């Protein structure tokens, strides 16, 4: 199992899209993968894997654009420094 938050997020994305080879800072939206189905799967993955709940006001696109931004969101949620 990948041993960092970012690696686990990247592993989830590449598991869902095996043909991809993305980096931590690559914009996954620009690759054309994202639809509402995958967005839902992504949110469920983050909430289950990191045992947290993403509040509505953190569900904006920039938080999910890259593995790095998702890692930062997870960090903020863990430390309780989220919006709202």
């Amino acid at each position, binding site marked *: 199992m990948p041993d960092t938050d970012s690696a686990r997020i990247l592993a989830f994305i590449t598991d869902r*899209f095996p*043909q991809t080879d993305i980096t931590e800072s690559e914009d996954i939206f620009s690759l054309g993968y994202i639809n509402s*189905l995958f967005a*839902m799967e*992504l949110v469920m993955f983050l909430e289950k894997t990191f045992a947290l709940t993403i509040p*509505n006001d953190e*569900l*904006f696109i920039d938080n999910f654009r890259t593995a790095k931004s998702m890692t930062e969101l997870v960090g903020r949620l863990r430390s309780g420094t989220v919006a709202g």
Partner: protein
Amino acid sequence: MTDQLTQSPATRVLDRAAVRAFVDQHISPGADAFDRAGAIPQELLDRIGEAGLWAPFLPPELGGRGTDLVTLGEIHEEVGRGCSSVRSLLTVHGMLSWALQRWGSAAQLERWGPRLASGRTLGAFCLSEPGAGSDTGAITTCAVPRGGGWVLDGCKKWITGGRRADLFLVFARGPASTVALLVPRETPGVSVRPIDDMLGTRASMLAEVAFDNVVLGPDALLGPSGFASGMVLTGTLDLGRYSVAAGSVGIVQACLDACAAYTSQRTVGGVLLREMPLIRAKLSDMVTDVRAARLLVAEAGRLKDAGDSATIMATWVAKYFASTAAARHATEAVQVHGANGCSPDFPVARYFRDAKVMEIIEGSNEVQRTTIAAEAYRRCAS
């Protein structure tokens, strides 16, 4: 077994056996009459509320039972075994209630949660339009921001429970993306026109719901706006699909029960139908498929309870398998019953009509197959 659900609220257990007894006592005996009348009696709707079946997954602090989703699937299977129209009302009410629980603000939960849990407020899901079904990108109902709130205009069609519902979860085209709005029925500008004489689930009280310059406050918006708003729809449809899958399992079980009973008393040339190999082949296929479909639904439910994103595809598969099995076995059930199966004297004609609907609602089976195949190709890509 006697019905326990409406007798001792403090100690009752909400499980498959208890719901089966409730269905056998209060739903199955009247299902054909409901079908002919085109409506579910208010007395039964109240009784379902007393039994805690409307949205049992809501947490106790909102008046629910905190029931897990595996159990919810079992409940909807049992109700679907008795009457698909009643199950369809549970489906759409559950969809709205689930969306509220998942996406609702504290104020929305406080306002609507207890009423939805008890059934004092009944919910309906408004997505389809005269020109848009599974093609959600084609919806034309518009929500325009105004004065901090919204103005809603448009028309929704094929709304299960719409004739009776008190609260509508309406999906509309917003400024940047689809938005989900909670719209009380009594809001000025909301009008409801019943739709009668449908092929199946004839007692599900379908309606066309129109919104004419409906002014809503900011608290009408459910969940996020922007890119994530599609998740509200995806998640809500996922729960609806799960319920329909479970209800389809119930239809197959009902077909099996009806055929086993009929072939055990009907003779041809002095021989019971049950002794004939071709009849046994049909029943063996029903037994096999109902078990397989039940397991697929249970697996989807288990993944939901675990918060595992794999539940979304598991639910697609379960709904596709269970609904096609229901349509196939309902056809065979009519065949087994012969002319009796085409008459109103036996329930299999109702199962046949209801089963067909299962292949269409919450995403047609063609859409499901396309999605399932796309997933296969995606995972196999190198």
